[in-house]
């Protein structure tokens, strides 16, 4: 299993997918930085972290996953390398599992980068404008738990996006699915049924009602693992013509 995983990671070298993984949390950090500079009074760290996590879960996470999965799948679709990979004496499910681990790893790194970069840019903003310096202390355990829950709740949307991206050689189905899912997640943010929409499950981790975040977490995590398994079975058996 380690060889396919190493190979997937090596393919990211000098790739657009790796650039995207840095860009998405970076954009949130840029937004937070300029937002901090325009503030007339200091806000607590907790508020900044919640704001960053909210932007991440609400929009940037589903859109990043859409783009990331499409780019990673296109690394094979573009040069038509599936036949080469599938003809090798390696169980095919391992090749797809390595791709899934790679995507999950990148999203985990991006999730961790969000609060880390927010901390860094706010420290920088404090140097430029001391009055903007956040107040209080960062509760890193709470921040990590929140982003961890968002990550687990996002498993279902990651699995769906990855499956569509790997299944179709064109960018269009994967992008249409991601844009469509994110669109409905945004326009129906407060809808009760939104808890069942994969693209809205991560942002539901900010819900104050316990049933809501618990349901989204269970569905997102459990459903994600189930869909990932089905994806491995389906793609391994599928013929490429």
């Amino acid at each position, binding site marked *: 299993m380690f*060889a*396919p995983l*190493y*190979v997937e990671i*090596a*393919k990211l*070298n*000098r*790739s657009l997918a790796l650039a995207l993984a840095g860009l998405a949390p970076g954009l949130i950090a840029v937004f937070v930085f300029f937002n901090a500079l325009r503030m007339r009074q200091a806000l607590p760290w907790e508020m900044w972290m919640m704001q960053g996590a909210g932007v991440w879960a609400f929009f940037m996470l589903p859109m990043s996953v859409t783009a990331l999965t499409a780019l990673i799948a296109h*690394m*094979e679709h573009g*040069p*038509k*390398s*599936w*036949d*080469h*990979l*599938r*003809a*090798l*004496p*390696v*169980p095919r499910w391992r090749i797809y599992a390595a791709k899934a681990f790679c995507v999950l790893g990148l999203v985990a790194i991006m999730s961790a980068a969000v609060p880390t970069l927010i901390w860094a840019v706010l420290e920088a903003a404090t140097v430029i404008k001391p009055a903007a310096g956040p107040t209080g202390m960062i509760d890193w355990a709470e921040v990590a738990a929140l982003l961890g829950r968002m990550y687990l709740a996002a498993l279902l949307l990651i699995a769906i996006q990855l499956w569509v991206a790997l299944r179709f050689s064109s960018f269009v189905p994967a992008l249409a699915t991601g844009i469509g899912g994110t669109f409905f997640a945004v326009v129906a943010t407060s809808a009760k049924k939104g808890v069942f929409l994969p693209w809205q499950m991560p942002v539901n981790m900010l819900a104050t009602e316990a049933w809501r975040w618990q349901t989204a977490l269970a569905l997102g995590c459990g459903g994600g693992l189930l869909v990932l398994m089905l994806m491995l079975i389906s793609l391994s058996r599928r*013929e*490429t*013509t």
Partner: protein
Amino acid sequence: MSPAIETHVLTRRFGRMLAVDGVSMTVPEQAVYGFLGRNGAGKTTTLKMLLGLLKPSAGRAVVGGIDVAADRIAAARKVGALLEAHGFYANLSGRENLDLTRRLLGLPASEIDRVLAVVEMTGDAGRRVGGYSLGMRQRLGLARAMLGAPPVLILDEPTNGLDPDGIADMRHFLRDLPGRTGATVLLSSHLLGEIEQTASHVGVIHAGRLVLEGELTALRAGVAARIAVRATDAKAALALARSKGLQAAVEHGEVVVALAPGEAVERASVDLNRALIQAGVDVIAIGPRARSLEGLYRQVTAVEAQKEAA
């Protein structure tokens, strides 16, 4: 000696279309087997079944004695493949691309240098594949197929995109490969000349059916000899040949006369030359035409086309 590759009534349908129709082919060990057919004849579909990329609708594909459908991974260990779509990652160097496959195959790092040296790509291996010419990609693909020195190489259109020097190098390389490494080479092509100059064995696929197979020299020997005549008046030469009961036709400005099987070509040339001169037809050149694979190919595909029309 058991064959390196065998198929038994291999068949593949795509919906209502029969792409490969009961192909039973035999590739002997250490042969260079030219798999010839026009585009869409079923070559790539057959190769994909040999590689386990497509499942046969019926029949069996056996590589190195292993049934591909029964144990794809064991069969794949015996094969290195160069497919039409190379599948290289443009953002990585040639060496890095080879390293990905090497790791998946669990081979030592020294394998990369070995195969790069074989295809004479050592100097360019550090460059990104995105900057490679098509010919360089083809050679890199060949290097990748040879990782781990598999006993069978399956090459789909290996001279595609090569310049004339590259084509000649590739021919020499493939022709010598069984002698140097003991490998068996199955190469597909739609180019008659390429197969004729490279292969020891040939299989012709037409509309999904294998219509001809055998050792190239034996097949050529079975072709009726032909005489080519270049005359100042081709029409008169043609009429005269036909009046003598010979099968004749004009091809590229020459009158080509097909002899009966076993008929001595030298004697027939002398007789025809004398008859032409006596009839007042000036002969510029006359002589036996080489028994070519093209003649054989035209013969079998014409028969198949007649069958289809009937």
